[in-house]
């Protein structure tokens, strides 16, 4: 029995050690290229929810600015993408990006693939599943890639006991979930997933965060 406990503790330690990876090791190209300017590409929507594309787009700008990057105005770039037939980012996901460097002056382009965009009124959950891919416009290489499946808990516990209390909580949860915009899950997903992204020029830890812990390339979490 004692051996099993030791074995369990050891495997736990090994697992936690194996997961510890620094930003410098996980995203070396971010530090090599040090992109300053980022163009946010229109999201690639793999869900049935047509509106997800336009709405999710608006969630990307502020978190990237907060990471210390110069991010082009989403409203202005979206207008330009629509007028220059660049609205379908699928065409550029693996293609040449030099035109974004020439036209915008962008060092990198942020692609996002929306894989899940759901609302569960009874369970009280909003879900956003998104993959984030930052590619260099200079070399075409992937500088940063991470995917997240983030659930936002919108459940309400009214505190009442018994069956009646449970029914009230259920109804309150359903109403709260139904009236909470799904874009909230998109926002939380972006902030959560990009939290381990190396900081840009305007960040307080620019070029000093190589030793910070990076998260796993796929992250799943439930947030409030």
């Amino acid at each position: 029995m004692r051996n099993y406990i030791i074995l369990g503790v050891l495997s736990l330690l090994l697992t936690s050690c194996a997961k510890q990876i620094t930003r410098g090791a996980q995203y070396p190209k971010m530090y090599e290229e040090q992109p300053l300017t980022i163009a946010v590409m229109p999201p690639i929507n793999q869900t049935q929810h047509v509106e997800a594309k336009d709405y999710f787009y608006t969630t990307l700008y502020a978190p990237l600015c907060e990471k210390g990057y110069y991010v082009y105005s989403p409203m202005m770039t979206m207008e330009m993408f629509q007028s220059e037939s660049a609205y379908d980012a699928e065409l550029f996901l693996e293609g040449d990006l030099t035109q974004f460097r020439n036209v915008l002056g962008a060092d990198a382009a942020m692609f996002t693939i929306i894989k899940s965009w759901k609302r569960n009124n009874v369970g009280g959950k909003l879900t956003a599943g998104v993959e984030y891919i930052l590619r260099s416009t200079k070399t075409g290489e992937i500088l940063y890639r991470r995917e997240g499946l983030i659930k936002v808990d919108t459940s309400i516990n009214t505190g009442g006991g018994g069956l009646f209390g449970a029914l009230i909580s259920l109804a309150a949860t359903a109403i709260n979930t139904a009236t909470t915009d799904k874009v909230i899950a998109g926002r939380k997903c972006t902030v959560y997933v990009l939290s381990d992204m190396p900081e840009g020029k305007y960040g307080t830890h620019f070029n000093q965060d190589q030793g910070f812990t990076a998260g796993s390339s796929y992250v799943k979490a439930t947030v409030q």
Partner: protein
Amino acid sequence: MRKLFVAAVLLSALASCQTQNSLYTWYNSEDATYAYTKKGTEETLNEAMLQYEKVINNQRGLRRAVPPGVNAEYGFLLYKAGKKNEGLKFLQAEIQAYPESEQFISRIIKQLEK
């Protein structure tokens, strides 16, 4: 009671620390621009403009600077609303604050003035 008071003070201190970790103050601009994207009415546009004004004039973030793109977006909307000189002033302010934006903003100014 005293413990509760100390806990409340500590919590509010922590909360203020979190605010100070932000490079910029965004006010309600994210919600306002989202509402404008969703429903481009005069009302949502006015609200977005109001929030941009707050972001431009009352920065309390770590950088004490207007976030990237905000001067440009505000100027762009002003120009489209017919306030051309004022709009150009804000577009130029973007280049001044962020020289890396010059290529894009100069192109936009050229397109607007065509």
